[in-house]
């Protein structure tokens, strides 16, 4: 029985018809489709990638990146008021006085906490908006890149990363990323992460988009979950040193009299209680921006991915970089409607899964870098070779049954249990039928600029993981986000702990930078009701919220429609 409606059956039959030939190509080890040249890549990107559309960027009018062009939605969220009036808040009695404050409880935050502890820090506070582990880190499926094979090396990995990032990455950071990857693989294994291994214990490796070697380590297709839950378990095993404060997002950073970062103002999300934290080092690990639904795209991201850290850091004067590109994952679910945008791991293609159009034809090398691959999917759909769903969406097929034809029955159950389960819930058996996919908003390529010590241009402020900028240039490769948050989360913990040993903050806490920010907004002539960070997206039924009201709270309906102004 098919899990797809009648209207999609004609195309499904074509996919079935072309499958044997495609399987034969793959079996012979031939390239099933030629990779694009650099010129062809440029062409498809400029024509079809959402970043290249004329309305995708605008100029920011204030702050450290003033007069630069950034992604439009990011400019909106940055050119906003603070949630608080500094005059209303008494900072004289902090609730916490700690060595290190970590804002964000995902992978980078957990790594930072563990390594700050290992470095000897005794008072670590990890504050997070939802629960520890509620993060994109938990959701990444495919794997982590590390050059752990004899015919691979950190230098080969380096070249792949730089090329994938359009040669705009900070070389210093890429060298660290690729050189420390094997060490991270071992560290995680020591914590108890169950990597997929060969019989002799050698780490299993798979190809990924934009890689030139087999380099992707995995834990079935729960790689992110396996690592995140292990890191979480480790953090929770040391409550005497690491205090975890859940449901407590930061709403502003705090400084001392000299403008050095000295902690943060948190707000308990349900009770509204303000929590003042004084800290010698502050680490931002708040992740990315998927829930801002840039250009109206659905997203693979966690509910909490609203770019909070970006807003906080920018207001205190931290510089951003590469905030003009957005990563769209080529394979977001386009059917059924309930799981729209949800991530279908790149591992499907790593295992031999093939993207085909509505005629069942191959149209792209399955492992191009993500921006290129996604652009070709958009092209197929824009030129009428996509498959329509009953709700009027369009996508292309990701043919998964070929995986078992190539590698034998049972491969999908063993290698893609999460995918198998997710689609089974909607009566689609991905061993027998393909998945319908369309690019989905996936990753913040840039962020707050860091150096190799994860320092920003503001004293005492460190950043790691997706919130940071420079590692991935203009486009991240698959398997480098898990690697990024482990490598730089660890470094943030170590260097933040080192920094905390210095007598580095004044006694008095301040929100002066917020006053300055408000003045800058006025001086730039920006009149707006917008307030940020938004903390939560809003998926309520908008009609219901509007009913009988003349005036709306500025956050209402944010995620779906942008601010109500």
């Amino acid at each position: 029985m098919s899990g797809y409606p009648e209207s999609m059956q004609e195309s499904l039959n074509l996919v079935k018809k072309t499958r044997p030939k495609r399987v034969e190509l793959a079996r012979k080890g031939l390239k099933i489709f030629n990779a694009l040249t650099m010129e062809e890549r440029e062409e498809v990107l400029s024509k079809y990638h959402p970043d290249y559309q004329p309305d995708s960027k605008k100029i920011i009018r204030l702050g450290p990146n003033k007069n630069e062009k950034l992604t439009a939605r990011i400019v909106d969220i940055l050119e906003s008021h603070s949630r608080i009036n500094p005059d209303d808040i008494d900072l004289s009695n902090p609730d916490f006085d700690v060595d290190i404050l970590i804002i964000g409880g995902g992978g980078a935050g957990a790594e930072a906490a563990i390594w700050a502890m290992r470095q000897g820090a005794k008072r670590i506070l990890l504050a997070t908006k939802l629960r520890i582990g509620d993060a994109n880190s938990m959701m990444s499926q495919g794997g982590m890149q590390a050059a752990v094979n004899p015919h691979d090396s950190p230098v080969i990995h380096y070249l792949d990363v730089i090329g994938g990032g359009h040669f705009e990455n900070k070389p210093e950071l890429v060298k660290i990323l690729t050189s420390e990857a094997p060490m991270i693989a071992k560290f995680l294994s020591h914590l108890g992460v169950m990597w997929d291994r060969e019989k002799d214990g050698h780490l299993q490796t798979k190809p990924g988009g934009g890689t030139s070697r087999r380099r992707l380590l995995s834990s079935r297709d729960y790689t992110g979950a396996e690592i995140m839950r292990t890191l979480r378990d480790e953090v929770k095993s040391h409550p005497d040193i690491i205090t975890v404060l859940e449901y407590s997002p930061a709403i502003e950073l705090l400084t001392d009299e000299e403008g050095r970062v000295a902690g943060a103002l948190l707000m308990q999300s349900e009770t509204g209680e303000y929590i003042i934290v004084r800290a010698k080092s502050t680490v931002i690990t708040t992740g990315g921006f998927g829930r801002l639904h840039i250009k109206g795209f659905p997203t693979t991201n966690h509910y909490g991915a609203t770019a909070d850290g970006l807003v906080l850091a920018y207001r205190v004067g931290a510089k951003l970089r590469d905030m003009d590109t957005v990563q769209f994952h080529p394979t977001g679910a386009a059917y059924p409607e309930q799981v729209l945008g949800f991530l279908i791991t790149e591992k499907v293609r790593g295992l031999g899964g093939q993207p085909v159009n509505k005629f069942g034809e191959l149209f792209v090398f399955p492992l191009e870098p993500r921006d290129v691959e996604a652009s070709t999917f958009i092209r197929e759909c824009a030129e009428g070779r996509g498959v329509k769903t009953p709700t009027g969406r369009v996508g292309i097929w990701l043919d998964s049954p070929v995986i078992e034809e190539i590698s034998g029955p049972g491969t999908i159950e063993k290698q893609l249990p999460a995918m198998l389960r997710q689609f089974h819930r909607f009566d689609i058996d991905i061993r027998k039928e393909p998945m319908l996919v369309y690019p989905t908003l996936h990753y913040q390529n840039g962020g707050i600029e860091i150096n190799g010590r994860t320092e920003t241009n503001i004293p005492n402020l460190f950043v790691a993981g997706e919130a940071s900028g420079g590692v991935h240039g203009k486009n991240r490769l698959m398997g480098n986000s898990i690697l990024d948050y482990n490598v730089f989360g660890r470094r943030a913990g170590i260097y933040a702990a080192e920094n905390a040993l210095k007598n580095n903050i004044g006694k008095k806490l301040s929100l002066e930078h917020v006053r300055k920010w408000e003045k800058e907004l006025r001086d730039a002539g920006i009149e707006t009701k917008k307030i940020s960070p938004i903390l939560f997206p809003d998926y309520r039924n908008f009609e219901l919220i509007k009913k009988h009201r003349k005036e709306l709270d500025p956050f209402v309906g944010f995620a779906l429609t942008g601010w109500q102004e």
Partner: protein
Amino acid sequence: MREESEKGEKKPTKEKRIPVFIMGQKYEVPEGFTILNAIEYAGYQLKRGVGCREGFCGACATVYRLPGDYKLRGGLACQTVVQPGMYITQIPFTPAQKATYDIEKLKPDVTTFQKFYPEVFRCLGCNACSKVCPQELDVMGYIQAIMRGDIQMAANMSFDCIMCGLCTMRCPAEMAQYNIAILARRLYGRYLSPKSEFLEVRLKEIEEGKFEEQFKEIMSLSKEELRKRYVERDINFKIT
């Protein structure tokens, strides 16, 4: 994306509404929605009990009953489609024991569980845990494997656990299966799984600076030279 402007295309038909009860209160929500969509559609902006929305994080554990059915069922709000007359309550938090330990100092055998989670051995074999598991894991099976000291089996059987806590809420022996399971997996990963010999070689190479010269060379290239190097690089998925 939704193609709105295309000529002649039929607009999606207006969705059918069905009644559901969220914490006892009745709401009409579109058919085919997940429980999570339905709660939001009803007007709630969640600050708890919501997470990845893709079935990986275990934040949205939910229990429900269907009309005319005595069974209390469990599921993830983001993965379960609403049915007419469904009574829904979220369980955003599970009070549960979590042992604290130093993984470096543990023994990968049954004594560790006797020490940290002695309640494991109170298992009644009722299988309520497996029945409620939204991942359809054999929860009781892995608990029994732990009782037998088979940590490898417990680690593999529990691997897809997302730690939502529903098993714990149902267990008459009052154990926190999901915390017990992660200890089993960590013990297996740390002590019992085979180790990679080559990884040690590679780590030594890096430590000894084997790649420093190559890095120096590649990092000295101009953007144009680097681009050329990238385009001409050998892509080979056959060798390892």
